[in-house]
């Protein structure tokens, strides 16, 4: 378990930020901070999508590997 956010939680936060910005009541500093955070989340999500390499393995091998 890593402290890194999951793709899902990052995507949720990004969409929440977009909503907040679109509501139009954010103060200037907040709007800039939101945008920066949003860009960061976008890059994070995109990185997740582009870098993730799937694998298919066998339960039998997995169990073998787990043995001491």
């Amino acid at each position, binding site marked *: 378990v890593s402290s890194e956010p*999951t*793709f*899902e939680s990052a*995507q949720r936060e*990004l*969409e929440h*930020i*977009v909503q907040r*910005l*679109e509501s*139009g009541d*954010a103060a*200037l500093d907040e*709007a*800039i901070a*939101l*945008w920066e955070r*949003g*860009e960061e989340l*976008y890059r994070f*999500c*995109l990185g997740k*999508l582009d870098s*993730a*390499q*799937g*694998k*298919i*393995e*066998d*339960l*039998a091998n*997995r*169990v073998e590997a787990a043995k001491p």
Partner: protein
Amino acid sequence: VERPASSRERPLPVADVVRLAGRAVDALGLVWLVGEVTQVSQPSSGHVYFALQDQGSVLPAVMWGRDVARLRAPIQAGQRLRVRGRLGVYDRDGKLQLYADFAEPAGAGAEALALEQLKAKLAAEGLFAAERKRRLPVWPRAIGLVTGNDAAAKRDVLTGIQARFPPANVIVAETYVQGPRAASAVVETIRRLAELTDVIVVARGGGSFEDLLPFSDERLVRAIAACPVPVVSAVGHEQDMPLCDLAADVRASTPTAAARLVVPDLGELHDRLDRSRAALGAGARRSLDRHAQRLAEAHDRLRRAPALLLERRRATLEQTAGRLRALSPQATLNRGYAIVRAGESIVRSAEAVEPGERIDVEVGDGRFGARVE
């Protein structure tokens, strides 16, 4: 049963006799019978011609295509079937024939009944209740796949997953999916996969009623309901509906459909992310624009403020002057009144002046001297 009037003098035509015999056997109504299937043939019409035999007797039978289509399993030689139908006599050859409209494996009756009872029991326990169903993870870290060495189901799930979402991690567990060991093998496999994955797909291709029975086994059904991670069931064909389908969190009609359920579509994720980013930029720009506009307006008002202040003061002054003018006696004098002064003081009484005294009179457009008489 109708008795034909016939005699040596008045014999009946063959067609009449065959028709009468047909009516007589049809009067027996719906018949259930059990026997072994032989001589199966299915021409392109879709109807199935076969014969049922046991204890040395044979009965030809036909099932029309629309009834064949409703069967769970095809009619095959060597099967022991429980068949329902009406009897008739085929006029072309005068043979007794069964017009069958339903057939099932002869052993299936008791099993089907037991299955119905188990289903009712588990349903009463709430095992199949909609509120027990869990949502599948959007992006599972690892997907467990329980399958037989049946290549098609396994391949369909894996290809489906990889086509839709290449980053998926799948742990494949091949196990028995048929026969007496299947139920406990699948239970054990699910238990082990649940520790390593966050969603499990149980996939098995179609099969006969008996083949799919392990997937209605009480232990297996309970294990799926109690599984710590959500389970997708893709077992058998659409119409089979083994009990594991009811206990699973989601039922997939095919292995390919199961693949679509357990992973997101990478293309869609990309699109959604791009839309979010576009909206983010637009939102931020709008927010900045709005703040800039508010600033410009404030600046404008600030610049105009001193001039506005002077303007307002001048207006107030004019107004005061107007009121002052309205109050001055000039207007009254213009209407014909006069102010009389004796020396410095205004004369307000006839008693205040003496005859011969000099007075000053002021009228609207000037003043003149006078003497009191």
